């Protein structure tokens, strides 16, 4: 996985370049002359890009949140944990609605973005990324936090007594001993983002090449009675997700054996 973090302004440029490339390479005319007869590789490229980006951002953002959840002793920690876990139980349309409103031109955030770039984030790839980050947050943070809390507190105490700052203790003791949990969190947030539907539909708006992800593509094909196309696309998504998870749990298992 080559995870590259790009800035928001680069995003649009990168996306356009990638889409052009994808279009040239993968769009071929079918025997009926209709490009849509073949699986929409554009949707796949888009979805994978989305999932990789979201997993990368959640890795950077989720680690500090998980660290706080694992080690803080504030009495209101449970509130933070509940907020992080919300996306698991909320209907995606609820989350999608609120994200759309927040990104749209009627909210302070949306207006600020509009003043910067000339348009809102709603119905853009950037808006999708934000929505997906929120939606997949617990799938990264919870495995991270669980892994951190399993690290023996005595090891962290030993590290402190030996002169290591909290940051150094984190990078040299906690993180290396939490690799299975961190890998799980990254992979789950990747796989979960791959399979999003509700939030993506509401925030993204199903624009081909911009916000039409694979899951929405399948939905469209079913609506258009293109069951063959839907089936092919669904199978590929199923295979990608399954392979991702197999790799994760397989790697996890070997890692556990090493530490045992």
């Amino acid at each position, binding site marked *: 996985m080559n995870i590259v973090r790009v800035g928001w302004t680069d995003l649009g440029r990168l996306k356009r370049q990638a889409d052009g490339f994808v279009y040239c390479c993968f769009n071929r005319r079918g025997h009926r002359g209709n490009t849509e007869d073949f699986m929409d590789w554009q949707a796949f490229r888009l979805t994978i890009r989305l999932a990789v980006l979201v997993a990368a951002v959640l890795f950077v953002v989720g680690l500090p949140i998980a660290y706080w959840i694992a080690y803080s002793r504030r009495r209101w920690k449970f509130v933070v944990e509940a907020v992080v876990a919300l996306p698991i139980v909320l209907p995606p349309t609820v989350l999608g609605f609120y994200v759309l409103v927040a990104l749209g031109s009627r909210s302070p955030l949306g207006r600020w973005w509009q003043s910067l770039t000339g348009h809102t984030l709603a119905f853009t790839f950037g808006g999708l990324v934000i929505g997906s980050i929120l939606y997949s947050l617990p799938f990264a943070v919870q495995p991270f936090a669980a892994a951190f809390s399993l690290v023996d507190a005595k090891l962290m105490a030993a590290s*402190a*007594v*030996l002169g*290591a700052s909290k940051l150094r203790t984190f990078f040299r003791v906690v993180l290396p001993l939490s690799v299975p949990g961190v890998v799980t969190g990254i992979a789950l947030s990747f796989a979960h983002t791959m399979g999003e539907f509700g939030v993506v539909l509401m925030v993204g708006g199903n624009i081909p090449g911009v916000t039409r992800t694979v899951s929405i593509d399948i939905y469209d094909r079913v609506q258009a009675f293109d069951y063959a196309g839907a089936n092919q696309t669904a199978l590929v998504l199923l295979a990608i997700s399954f392979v991702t998870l197999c790799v994760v749990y397989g790697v996890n298992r070997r890692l556990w054996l090493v*530490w045992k």
Partner: protein
Amino acid sequence: MNSDASVVEIKKSLPAAGADFVLEVGFRLDAGFTILYGPSGAGKTTLLDCIAGLTAPDAGRIAITDRVFFDDAKGINLPAQRRRVGYVFQSLALFPHLSAEKNIGYGLARVEASERRRKTDAILESFRIAHVRDRRPEEISGGEQQRVALARSLVTDPGVLLLDEPLAALDAVTKGKIIDDLRAWNQMHRVPILYVTHSREEVFALGERVVVLERGRITAQGTPQEVMTAPRLETVAQLAGFENIFAVTVTAAHENRGTMTCRIACSTVELETPLVRAAEAGSAVRVGIRAGDILLATVEPRGLSARNVFSGRMVSLEQRDVTVVVKVDCGVVMEVHLTLAARDALELRVGRDVWLIVKTYSCHVMAGRGPQKHA
């Protein structure tokens, strides 16, 4: 004022299973070994944690040689990272993902690489663990793990060393070797060493001073001889390994002889013990006798110097490692420790009539309440 002297004064409330209690101690810590001795739950580990900076006392002052770690009056609380404390935990807390060499070098991160290598090599050699330098903790033996944990703490040249039962899980031979290593290190680096243990052997092997901690308070301080062999508190006696403790009533005090006669409660057995000041007929005290101080005879002894000779019957015989534990009912049940050779030579068996002999000076008169300890 000795500039080497360190002071530890701590007051901290501890929530504990059962009843909360307060850890309240104040003692001086000189260079060399100070043994911290006491039952589990007494607060020993908390005391060490306070000195190391892992937990803060509610009030007090901790100063090691000339550095003040904690002083609530002045608002000083040095973080653990800056205290230069060597702390060997009971569980060792070796980093499982790092080799022995990397474990030892962990505290030397700020030291230049070649110097770090040199120091690590030196301590690996002196603790005889150079052959395991590339192995992870799970791949080496218990004794080697102990030595790695010790080396890790000592290589940073700490100003004070805290050891929490470091030798608990080791066999006698390995223990002996590590104790020698520690003593050698102590000769070269005269820093205060606070050593927590349950073991009497370690107290005598290492202790220059002993501090007994019970339920958060110091109940005895002094040299090992003072604290362990002549305990004045029954609780200390129990800790120090007196197997027989009886509640007795003084029947007569013999000033001219320096002894007194006591009757063991609920029996007719009379003991002759050393005279204790302020003892008079009728006072109730407690007497402790070590099982190893009692002699056993299979024929009635004559012409002995000992004043306490009792006849009784053996009620149990048990072998524990290399000691034979015998219980004899002579009006009260007394526990006696014998060697295996003695058991075989005397052909001891349960139900046999025997005589017990106890020297007057083996009876230690103590104050203190507490349940009578029957053998």
